């Protein structure tokens, strides 16, 4: 499972961070940063929520 961020879309709302602060962090640049490269399968549900709740459709999930 891999998360993709579309940096042309992300505007740094940080919804993803509020759902999983160990995976996502909005930096001082106002963009999200992925904190972990590989994603444990047991976090799939929360990542799917982040994908659905990102207001700019910046996140997508492979695999």
């Amino acid at each position, binding site marked *: 499972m891999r998360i993709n961020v579309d940096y042309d879309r992300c505007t740094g709302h940080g919804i993803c961070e509020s759902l999983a602060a160990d995976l996502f962090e909005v930096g001082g640049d106002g963009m999200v940063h992925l904190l972990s490269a590989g994603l444990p399968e047991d976090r799939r549900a929360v990542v799917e929520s982040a994908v659905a*709740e990102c207001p700019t459709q910046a996140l997508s999930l492979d695999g």
Partner: protein
Amino acid sequence: MTDTGSGLVVVGASLAGLRAAEGARRAGYQAPITLIGAEPHLPYDRPPLSKDFLTAAGPPTATLLREEAVLRDELALTLRLGTTATALDVAAQIVVTDSGEVSYDRLIVATGAAPRTLPGTDRLSGVHALRTIDDAHAIRAAIDGGARTVVVGAGFIGSEIAASAKKRGSEVTVVEALATPLARAVGEELGLALAALHERHGTRLRVGVGVERLEANGVGAVTGVRLADGSRIDADLVVVGIGVAPATGWLAGSGIELGNGIECDENLATSAPNVWAAGDLVSWPNATTGLRMRLEHWTIAAEQGGAAGRNAADPDAATPFTTVPYFWSDQYDKRIQFVGVAEAADETTTVIGDLDSDSFLVLYRRGDRLIGALGLEQRGTVMKFRHLLAANAGWDEAMSFAKERAAAAAAKAAAAR
């Protein structure tokens, strides 16, 4: 529950309705799902309508929430667009529409909210509310025709429209009947601080004065706005942003309990069997804040849709929907973000920046608890308070966290110099 094979029907093909269908599929629901929507368009996103859609240099386009192929193939939805639900029979489990009846085993109501209008202005041209993409096209065209714009209502959507019209070159005045705009959303002091954005960016703002009537010429085109104090503002475009009302008219007489919208329980179930609701029309007890609330925020509509879809797919495993409210607004290229609630705050404290600048962070206290955080251009910071709010954090903890953030920001600014 005995299912007949009619499957899940979702009424309202926008954010909450789409997320409900997705939530049901994600929870393993395999029976048919029908999505009924009054608008002829595929589900699209509303927030851009008052922002990029109005300011974009090139021809504006809708931001679809999902491509049509995803709706039809991946989610296997039956789309009934351009179809308006007119009544509901909860005993027979039938939705009546303007093009026939649709039976359901399970139903999710997500018909959202519709703008309030100024009485007696229906037949005037040049007067618009902004809720749909068709409204947005009309407003953009009027601005491009050189219209002098008056926005009635300095709420978030009205303020965004003013900022966008200004950016597009229109001469803009905002008129607000209340002495303090946005007071209910963010409190009086912060309402004033945010309203000051207008004047700092060259938009006129008249507060504490109501609209007496709209004036029109012989062919029914608006020419001006007469205010309660007798003054008049020339206008070729009047955008009315005085709030929305839950779109529950079609449920009258259905037996579903209505009040401030649809009165739901903690699982987003309505008072009728096998019927749930999601989005702007839902009133529900939110355990995180301890309040029954009805919100008109994007994130909450998305979250509620997902939750209602899950609960409808597997009612025996239903879970309460709780959230820390969040909304944002973009005006004059500045982002406003709010988490939590502002109501009944005992104190607000500015922890980063100044209220008369374009960048600040304010915390809201009630008793010894943190209840909210408001940021202007604080993208990396505001959402960090959502955790603290979810955990019902104490005020002292929130203040020391804020001080750490402020110190880190100051150190970074110093290093950059």
